């Protein structure tokens, strides 16, 4: 019991750190994904913006959803939200607390992706290279070109090898400009997120600390209760199975005796315990019959009261009236295999 308690406490205190660990792993995975990803700007006027913004915004959305999927508590939250009221009231504060803590953890990997992308600069360079201010940055002496031509040339900025607009605007100048803007955006974004996190964390103890303690306690309680219920059901299933199987073997050996199919050999007196464990099945033929019967015709999910003095294991008092005929059907089916 002591060991149980220690393991439970470990699990309980560790669930938060377990979820924090998953959170950190996902953040690392997102940086790894970004560095392994082969970024290929299309360098075409119509596609650049879509590609750049797509790479910037779609993976964070996927990572956010993945953060929810990998969180075990999402099913607990859904269950608590949808269950009928019954005899226990529902506390919306608890639901809000559970949802907020899950959402906060799920937001870390997307924020990491966005920061790394903005600080690296390739996405913004690809997406906004056609909007570079050519008048201020470009060479003063460039030939007059049509708007479409200018757009086409500017779109090639991210692809240095095919860029042939040097006389319009130098490639390095444009890339430096765009990367500077991208990094400024990135740092401002990280600063904003960190400030938000700091405010959320530090303002909470100043207001509603008591309500917070309450919500945290009851959300842990719901989690523990669910786990304990599953364990209790597993224990019950184990006992149920044990008794069911025991009754199956008893029923089999009783029926064998009753049908005179096989005279039970008397076990020697000094092996009393072993004989008991054998449950009346003492030779190959009977064992084979027991195994075949177990496979072909499993006993009903219905335990009887302990052995009646009549020796007929099937009929007994205490059966709920809902299954009067099933045992007899099983008996008949069993006999047909003899």
């Amino acid at each position, binding site marked *: 019991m002591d060991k149980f308690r220690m393991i439970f406490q470990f699990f309980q205190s560790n669930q938060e750190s377990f979820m924090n660990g998953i959170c950190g792993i996902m953040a690392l995975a997102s940086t790894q994904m970004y560095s392994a990803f082969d970024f290929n700007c299309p360098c075409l006027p119509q596609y650049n913006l879509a590609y750049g913004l797509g790479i910037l915004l779609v993976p964070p959305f996927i990572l956010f959803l993945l953060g929810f999927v990998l969180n075990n508590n999402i099913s607990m939250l859904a269950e608590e939200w949808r269950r009928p009221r019954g005899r226990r009231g529902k506390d919306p504060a608890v639901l809000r607390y559970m949802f907020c803590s899950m959402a906060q953890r799920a937001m870390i990997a997307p924020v990491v992706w966005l920061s790394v992308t903005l600080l690296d600069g390739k996405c913004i360079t690809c997406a906004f290279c056609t909007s570079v201010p050519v008048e201020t940055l470009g060479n003063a002496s460039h030939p007059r070109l049509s708007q479409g031509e200018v757009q086409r040339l500017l779109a090639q900025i991210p692809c240095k090898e095919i860029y042939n607009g040097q006389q319009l605007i130098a490639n390095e100048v444009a890339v430096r400009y765009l990367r500077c803007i991208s990094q400024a955006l990135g740092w401002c974004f990280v600063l904003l997120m960190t400030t938000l996190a700091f405010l959320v964390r530090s303002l909470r103890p100043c207001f509603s600390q008591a309500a917070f303690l309450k919500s945290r306690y009851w959300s842990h309680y719901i989690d523990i209760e669910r786990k304990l*219920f599953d364990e209790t059901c597993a224990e019950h299933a184990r006992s149920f199975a044990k008794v069911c199987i025991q009754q199956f073997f008893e029923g089999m050996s009783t029926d064998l005796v009753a049908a005179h199919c096989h005279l039970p050999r008397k076990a020697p007196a000094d092996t009393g315990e072993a004989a008991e464990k054998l449950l009346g099945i003492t030779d190959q033929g009977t064992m084979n019959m027991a195994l075949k019967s177990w496979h072909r015709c499993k006993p009903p*999910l219905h335990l009887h009261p302990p052995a009646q003095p009549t020796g007929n294991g099937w009929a007994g008092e205490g059966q*709920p009236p809902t299954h009067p005929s099933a045992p007899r059907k099983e008996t008949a089916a069993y006999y047909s295999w003899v």
Partner: protein
Amino acid sequence: MDRFRMIFQYFQSNSESVMNGICGLLALASVKMYTSLDFSCPCLPQYNMAYGLGIMFVPPIILFLCGLILNRQSLVMLEEWRRPPGHRKKDQAVIRYMCSSIMQRAMVAPVVWIIVTLLDGKCLICAFSGSMDPQKFVGFANVSTEQVQLLLAKVPCKDDELMRNNTSRKAVSRYLRCWSQALGWSILLILIIAAFLARWLRPCFSQATLLQARHWSNYIDIEQKIFEDTCCEHSRLFAHKCILHFFESMQQEIKLHSFSLPREGEGAEGGEGLVQGITDHDQVNKLLKTWYYEKPPLDVSQAHQR
């Protein structure tokens, strides 16, 4: 009792060392961030100063806030600060002690960033190349004012076509880097001397107050951890009783409905006791359905009285 003492000591020693560890990790992370950051000065007159000073000062603010967020003790301190007095008076010295230790730890990573930035020099070169006096450098002395501004702004970019082989560019760059490194080393020296003095001179003043403040701040930290653990333990026991109560009430309901004779306990050890009333496929299904549709009330007082 022995185990309790061991756990106590673990908690006691580990809070400080965990905080120190996080502090060190953040400092390492700041160095790593700086080296992996692709510093690209825009080399444009209006943007250089903003970019250079931004890279030098915005990440330290972020690292400082991260240091406060990741430190568990800051939450403890805030709670202690904002709680109503109740039956326990508040000691301002303890709160001040906790605040100062949190701030000291949070300041390490930003200071590391600023010093690494200054010793490397790129930020200062980018920010202040446009503010140089062109007369001091031969290559920029006889150029018109707007042109000189443009040229000076391009000094941090070595590969720019205008600046590729310009010796005056190297002169400006070296000059600024020298200033930057001097500033960096001076700041480092001042900080280390200040830390040294603070640590050596502290025992000379108010040592007793310090010992008290440290003891009670540790106490508050441990008390909160133990309270959380006790709540977990309590909710586990509560859930256990609630579920057993639920199973018993289901058994009773089934007994009432099926009018069966009360059975003698087959052996009420552990699992066998559970199986007594619930021995049927349908009964188990009913139990599970009831668990979902009608969770039992959060009240185990009846279970106690039985």
